[in-house]
Each structure stands twice: as structure tokens, then as C-alpha cells.
């Protein structure tokens, strides 16, 4: 197989972005760049800016206005990146009232897809701890994001599944717990659509998980050598066919006015050394699980799409002991990685570049 196309950021300029007035970051084009700084100086904002250049959204789940510095009318990002052998120039102006002004190599683009094509990222944040200990929706979300990035067709099926569920739940609410003969026909239709699309998604998720297992296992073994083997298994909310399960749960669904079986209720079971990750692993180990899942999806997507995303690790050393932190640095895949930390670097780790962010200045 041909080696993947490597994406890397050559320079990133931020203006009036969050609490950063005017900053230029020139990371190492290959390998690890570490950005050190105290909490609240804007390290995360640098990574947020990278993701914004790719998706035109903040990964912190806030409205775009929130990224514009207080009292300013607009924030600007300018990113020069290498996509394989091509240099691509991306500039984004984020304004309060209007749509973002986005240019790629000086040409105006309207479609976010034009940016995703040249810049993809894998992001790890401290919140990812919830992948190991939080609700099932986060684990499903991780799988679905990877599925959609690897296959636009399945991405469209995911959107379709979401709409089918909303239609079916709306119908269940309208029925108010009673099913007249006339309504049976329409409910049957939505059941049929849900069964068809739901099976496609469940199968895609289970297949993806199977592909992720060896990758995640290897990463986890390196990060937490004493913790035993990592196990990941898909936990469907039903047995047998979804069509049969929907029939069986129909009375329940009517009473609760909600679809109680289907991929929207599935989960991913995680354990290490035979211990359930949610309830029995220490927080440090749970962090290793989350990191292993992100690194595995990064590696999977690189192989599946032939394009290596930029790896972004926000505050990745937090709550990790020195040995684990060092293993993380050693375990990083080839390609560009940006890592932020409030603490010191683990002894023995040798990043390609180290910057400090103090008072809005990178040095």
C-alpha cells in the first residue's frame, strides 16, 4: 500500500482569537511539537484554531462568536499547510454578524468540505476521559465520527438514521400510547426503515470496532504496561434482527413514546485485565483507555483514507505519571503532532520543538 499523504501545519497565525491578540505558531513539520504554558494562557485556543481551520467550528461546542476576542469585531486565522507535496494556504475571517469568510489558496470557498479535504485532525482533550467512564453516547459518537470520516456514504446513512429516529419518536408521541389499526401501517413503515438503516449502522460500528481492537490494544499496552489486555466489544441493545426486536418492543415503545431498541441504544464495552473500565479502573488507567482509543482511530483513519491527520493532544499529560507520559511521547505515530501541557515534560522524552506561551507570546 502506498504511504499515506501526510498533512502538516507549517505556520498558523491567529489574530483576535480568544485571548490571543496576535500569535504565530511554527510547529515542526514532522514529529512532536510541545506548547507549554500555565492554565488559562490560551494553549487550548491554539488547538481550537487548528480545528477551526478544518471544520469551521469550535470543538468546545460554543457559538463561533465566542472565539472572537472581547471587544473585537472579527478574529482571523491564517494557516499554511503541507498536504502531501502541495502547499495550501487557508485563511478564515470569523465575524460577529456575517458568515465566515474562508479562502483556500486565495480562492473563496463556501463549503466546509473544501477545508476538510486538505486538513484533517485527530483531537484528544481532557474531556475524553468520559470515553472510558461517561455515557454510551460518547463511545457511539467516537465510532460514528470515524465511520463518517472513512465513508461519506455511511456518513449519509448515519444522518438518515438520526432522521428516521426523530420521525418514529414524533409518531410515537402523536399516538399517545394507543395504536389504532390505521396508525399501525405508518408505524410499520418507520420500523422497516429503522430496521434497514439501523442494521447497516450496527454492522458498520461492530466492524470498525473489530478493526480498532488490535490498534487500541497495542497503544494501551504501551501506555499502561501493567494493566492487562484491553478488550473492546460492541454491545447491541437487542438480540437477533432489529426488525424482530422492534416488533417485540413495540408495546414498550408505545407506552414510553420512545424508540427503546436500535443503534441509538447500543454501547461499547471496555475492560482491561478483566476489569470493567467504567467502574473498576483508576482514573489514570481510564485516561490511558481514552488515549488508546483516540490513537487507534487516528491510525485507522490514516490507513482507511490514505491521509494522515494532524494529531492534537490538549493537556495530554494531566493526571498521567511520568512513565506513562513518556510512553505517550514514544508511542506517537509518525506525522505531525501538537501537544499542550501545563506541567513539565517527562524526563527522557525528546520532542522536536518546544514552545512556551506566556502573556500571549510564543517563544
Amino acid at each position: 500500500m502506498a504511504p499515506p499523504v501526510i498533512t502538516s501545519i507549517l505556520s498558523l497565525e491567529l489574530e483576535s482569537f480568544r485571548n490571543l491578540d496576535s500569535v504565530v505558531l511554527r510547529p515542526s513539520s514532522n514529529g512532536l511539537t510541545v506548547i507549554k504554558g500555565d492554565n488559562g494562557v490560551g494553549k487550548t485556543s491554539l488547538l481550537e484554531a487548528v480545528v477551526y481551520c478544518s471544520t469551521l467550528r469550535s470543538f468546545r461546542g460554543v457559538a463561533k462568536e465566542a472565539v472572537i476576542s472581547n471587544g473585537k469585531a472579527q478574529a482571523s486565522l491564517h494557516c499554511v499547510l503541507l498536504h502531501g507535496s502541495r502547499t495550501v494556504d487557508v485563511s478564515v475571517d470569523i465575524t460577529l454578524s456575517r458568515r465566515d469568510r474562508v479562502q483556500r489558496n486565495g480562492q473563496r470557498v463556501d463549503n466546509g468540505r473544501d477545508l476538510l479535504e486538505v486538513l484533517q485532525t485527530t483531537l484528544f482533550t481532557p474531556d475524553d476521559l468520559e470515553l472510558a467512564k461517561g455515557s454510551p453516547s460518547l463511545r457511539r459518537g467516537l465510532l460514528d465520527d470515524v465511520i463518517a470520516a472513512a465513508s461519506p456514504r455511511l456518513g449519509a446513512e448515519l444522518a438518515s438514521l438520526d432522521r428516521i429516529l426523530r420521525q418514529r419518536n414524533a409518531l410515537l408521541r402523536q399516538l399517545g400510547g394507543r395504536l389504532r389499526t390505521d396508525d399501525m401501517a405508518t408505524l410499520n413503515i418507520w420500523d422497516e426503515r429503522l430496521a434497514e438503516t439501523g442494521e447497516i449502522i450496527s454492522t458498520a460500528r461492530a466492524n470498525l470496532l473489530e478493526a480498532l481492537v488490535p490498534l487500541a490494544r497495542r497503544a494501551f499496552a504501551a501506555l499502561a504496561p501493567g494493566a492487562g489486555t484491553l478488550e473492546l466489544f460492541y454491545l447491541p441493545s437487542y438480540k437477533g434482527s432489529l426488525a424482530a426486536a422492534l416488533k417485540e418492543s413495540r408495546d414498550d415503545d408505545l407506552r414510553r413514546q420512545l424508540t427503546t431498541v436500535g443503534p441509538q441504544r447500543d454501547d461499547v464495552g471496555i475492560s482491561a485485565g478483566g476489569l470493567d473500565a467504567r467502574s473498576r479502573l483508576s482514573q489514570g488507567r481510564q485516561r490511558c483507555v481514552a488515549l488508546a482509543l483516540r490513537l487507534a482511530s487516528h491510525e485507522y483513519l490514516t490507513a482507511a483514507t490514505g491521509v494522515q491527520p494532524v494529531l492534537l493532544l490538549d493537556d495530554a499529560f494531566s493526571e498521567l505519571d511520568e512513565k506513562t507520559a513518556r510512553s505517550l511521547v514514544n508511542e506517537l505515530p509518525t506525522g505531525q503532532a501538537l501537544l499542550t501541557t501545563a506541567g513539565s515534560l517527562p524526563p527522557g522524552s525528546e520532542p522536536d520543538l518546544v514552545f512556551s506561551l506566556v502573556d500571549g507570546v510564543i517563544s
Partner: protein
Amino acid sequence: MSVFAGPIQELVDELGRLPGIGPKSAQRIAFHILEVPKEEAVRLATAISGVKDRIRLCERCFNVGEAALCAVCSDSRRDSSIVCVVEDPRDIVAVERTREFHGTYHVLGGALNPIEGVGPDQLRVRDLLGRLEPEGVAEVIICTNPNLEGEATAMYLARLLGPLGTKVTRIASGLPVGGDLEYADELTLGRALVGRRQMAT
């Protein structure tokens, strides 16, 4: 918020209620109307009231027309044994343009969409059932939109009509002919690849 003199604001407000017209466009159109010669503005007003006075829905198929029966239903050359079911009268125009269809139509008035509160009772399904026997309908072609709601409606009608002995068909969906592959959406192209077929050799 009233910014303009009474009659202009009224016009801006009315225009702003039209689909696809935002406040800025509404203002632009209102001031355009203010500037054109009076005859031109009156012609527009007459056209608007004319469409409400003279246009009515066909009693049989719910297409738009000027008489009790629309132009298609009153054309004796049309084959009434084959009925093409569409969501909207505009879809009739699209099918007519193909010149491939010589039967009659039935306008449902939408598609199954519980989120919007649309079920079979909100669509003209009963009226369709009522046409099958008297008109001797042998085939119903379901021509609803190729989206989730259109497909659900098609399935619903197929299940409903099938047992009555009427042949039910669905238009095929696929890649646009004469267009560029690069403009096809992922789902259409992806499904087309998954559903590829062997060619005669």
C-alpha cells in the same frame, strides 16, 4: 419594528412572509415596486389576485387548473388506467416535461412526516383509493421524492395498494444522466457503487 411609512412597511411585511424572501430582499422588492410605473405594479397585483380567483384544485387529481378538472384530467387522450402519484403539483410539470407519461396524476399534497404532523390523514390518500375502481386504475406509479419521507410514503402506499390488486411501481433513482459524476452526492453515488451490476459482454 416599523421603520418605513405605513403602506411600505405593510408591503415589506407581506413580502417577508413569502418563502425564500428575507427582510433585506423584502425591502429591495418593496422599493423596486415603489419605483416602477403604476401599470407594472397593478399587473403584478392583478396576477396575484387572479391566481387566487381563477386557479383551483382539480376535483379528481388535485392538480392546479382553471376548471373543475385540470388540463390533464380533461384530456380524453390520457390513459386513466395508469396514475402517477406525486407530492406536489410542481412535480407534475417535471414529469410532463419528459413526455414519457401519458396517464393521469394524483397529488398527495406532501409526504409522511410525523415531525411536521403529517400522517396519511393529512395527505390525499383516501381520495386516491376512491379513484381506483371507478377509473379502472391498473397501475399506480409512485413518484414521490427520493428522500426519507418520500420513500416512506412510497412504501406506505405500496403496502396499502398492493393487496387491492393494483400494480404498484416506483420510479427508479440513480445518477443524473448527462451530468458530471463529480457533482453526484455521496449517498447516490455510494449506493450506485454498492448496487453495481455486471455488464453484458
